[in-house]
């Protein structure tokens, strides 16, 4: 809590506010880092905001275990059901709008109205991705007219566990824009929050925990980006990496490590988070499965219609 907002709270309510202990979100629970470490998170003006957990290699591995455990159930839900759950996230975010506006304003040094615009756009983005769950197969899959008597259908399926390096600058709109598409299609995620501005991400965990989203589908870690991402990039049970928030040098190192089990990798690139995001981040973490089946033959006779 910044000094300024604390002051105004005191004058308004004449009471001392209660600070929140920011915690990780792993497997549907809110643990501290197993390492016992925290680091100081400050506002863009350098004011102390909170002590955030500084996740360790072990925390990262625990998060992968949780994400893997949640994968089968989440991928196995109907697309409609996943859409309902994602929409529920948007409903819960709307209810916590003021909190996120404050956190984004503090984290990114934005005016209240600019922060509010970011949060509104983030809520609408959840809604946009909620709508994609049962539509992506209709634009990324389809029947293939093979030259033979075969039924041939391609369908997208989720890749698996995706490690997401959230954008460093856009602490909430950017975060939402990289997390929602991963889980919309049935993947599960280990999210590494912005190193300097992790609080909106940690608060997002609290929203997800109360949105019918099964535990482990999204896991949120805060700490030193390089320290947490290295074991994830090398992890044999991680299927894909979104390197959005990694700098050039780190991104290359992680991509090299990721090659060991051929993780699908989305490289960092400049993104205008306020613009239409297209379907790139949805399709990046999908596998296409094509099924063939003979159609048999009824012979030359039959209907003349």
């Amino acid at each position, binding site marked *: 809590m910044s000094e300024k907002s604390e002051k105004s709270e005191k004058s308004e309510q004449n009471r001392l506010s209660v600070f929140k202990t920011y915690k990780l979100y792993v497997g549907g629970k809110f643990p501290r880092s197993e390492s016992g470490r925290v680091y100081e998170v400050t506002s863009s003006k350098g004011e102390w905001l909170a002590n955030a957990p500084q996740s360790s290699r072990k925390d990262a591995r625990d998060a992968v275990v949780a994400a893997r455990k949640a994968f089968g159930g989440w991928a196995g839900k109907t697309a409609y059901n996943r859409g309902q759950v994602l929409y529920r996230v948007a409903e819960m975010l709307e209810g916590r709008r003021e909190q996120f506006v404050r956190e984004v304003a503090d984290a990114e040094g934005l005016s209240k109205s600019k922060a509010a615009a970011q949060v509104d756009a983030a809520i609408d983005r959840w809604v946009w991705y909620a709508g994609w769950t049962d*539509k992506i197969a209709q634009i990324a899959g389809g029947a293939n007219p093979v030259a033979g008597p075969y039924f041939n259908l391609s369908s997208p399926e989720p890749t698996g566990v995706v490690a997401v390096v959230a954008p460093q600058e856009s602490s909430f709109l950017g975060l939402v824009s990289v997390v929602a598409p991963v889980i919309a299609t049935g993947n599960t995620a280990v999210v590494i929050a912005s190193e300097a501005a992790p609080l909106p991400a940690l608060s997002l965990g609290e929203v997800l925990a109360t949105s019918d989203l099964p535990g482990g589908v999204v896991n949120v870690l805060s700490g030193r980006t390089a320290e947490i991402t290295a074991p994830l990039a090398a992890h044999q049970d991680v299927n894909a990496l979104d390197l959005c928030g990694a700098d050039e040098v780190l991104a290359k190192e992680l991509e090299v490590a990721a090659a060991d089990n051929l993780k699908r990798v989305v490289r960092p690139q400049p993104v205008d988070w306020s613009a239409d995001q297209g379907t790139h981040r949805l399709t990046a973490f999908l596998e296409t499965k094509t099924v063939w089946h003979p159609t048999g033959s009824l012979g030359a006779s039959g209907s003349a219609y």
Partner: protein
Amino acid sequence: MADKTETLNNPFEYAPAPESRSVVDIAPSYGLFIDGEFTEAADGKVFKTVSPATEEVLSEVAQAGAADVDRAVKAARKAFVKWSALPGAERAKYLFRIARIIQERSRELAVLETLDNGKPIKETRDADLPLVAAHFFYYAGWADKLDHAGYGANPQPLGVAGQVIPWNFPLLMLAWKIAPALATGNTVVLKPAETTPLSALFFADICRQAGLPKGVVNILPGYGDTGAAIVAHDDVNKVAFTGSTAVGKEIARTVAGTDKKLTLELGGKGANIVFDDAPIDQAVEGIVSGIFFNQGQVCCAGSRLLVQESVQDELLDSLKRRLGTLRLGDPLDKNTDIGAINSAEQLARITALAETGEAEGAERWSAPCELPTSGYWFAPTLFTNVTQAHTVARDEIFGPVLSVLTFRTPEEAVAKANNSQYGLSAGIWTEKGSRILAVADRLRAGVVWANTFNKFDPTSPFGGYKESGFGREGGRHGLEAYLDV
């Protein structure tokens, strides 16, 4: 109903489990819903809507005339300007709100629908209402993704859609019409059927709760002449109709020579084809759901059973045994399988066609069941010894009447299945995957169910070949009907 002593002596005596009516509050009268307000008809006309299970009058409803149609179209036209200019994401959020409110009020709407339509609460609660909410949810998501739908960049709405829906799935047909129309940026004037206007009027209240801008949805209860006035109105850009093939043809004639885009979901005479290797018990369940779901008042009903000769006896024995267990009666009873026929008029039509079947020499069998003394009822019935020339094999009965024909080879099955003016649905029952696909490939029908029947989903396109109409509702394909493409 058995008294207490009797129940004790006979522990297996049937005990009704009626759903409570108190969840729904039906007003003694309803107006037209035009430009966000309930209003009387210009000429003051009203009509009564009754519960087909009891013939009790449920409410008195304003009956829209030509002047009201004109007012509604003007309101829709005015609303179109802003509605179509809204960002897709904003239209999406209105539709998501509507979907959520429908979910919240689904038990109330299920009871209402059962009262007004006569179908079992089991169906309105477990099929109609979940599908209604899902349909709005699905199309809500399309509203801001139209660029991805395969119709080119920035596809445009048509304008004012005139929509006329039937009485067999009143709220579901409303959802099929209104959800894609609104998602794509059109505004609507919708006429519910004269025997089932209430759920559409409750939907008007849902639009109010959702804060939908005035004039975007207009509801005009009335009879055929109201529908004809909507279809013929000069300022309507799109006509969508679900109903009989005869009326569909009349509408096609009306819009001929205009710029109105037309989609029609009409009648059917679905063939349910059972091969000798089919799992019989599973097929029997599918046949029952295919023709007795919603008392057979379903355009895609599997009303022609085509059974391979070698398994005919076994299948019919099982089928008759199963039909004997269906429970016909109070639609609000949660155990009821077969509810009331929607109207006296429809009951008369079914009765006449069944009599024709007998007169033409087909063999009639009905499940032994007692019919209630008031209301409109028809026992589950099947005809055997049916040939392709029989009226009961050709005409859509739109009731709980199944015609059984036989075949020897897959070719013969396909030929018989396709020997119809209709082409809406078909079913295939066999354990052999390649046969399913080969037969499906040859069927001239818009929906083919294999080892299942009467499955619906908002993501899945639905619509007919031939005189079952044209255009598709549901899925990505369903957007096309409301886009200028």
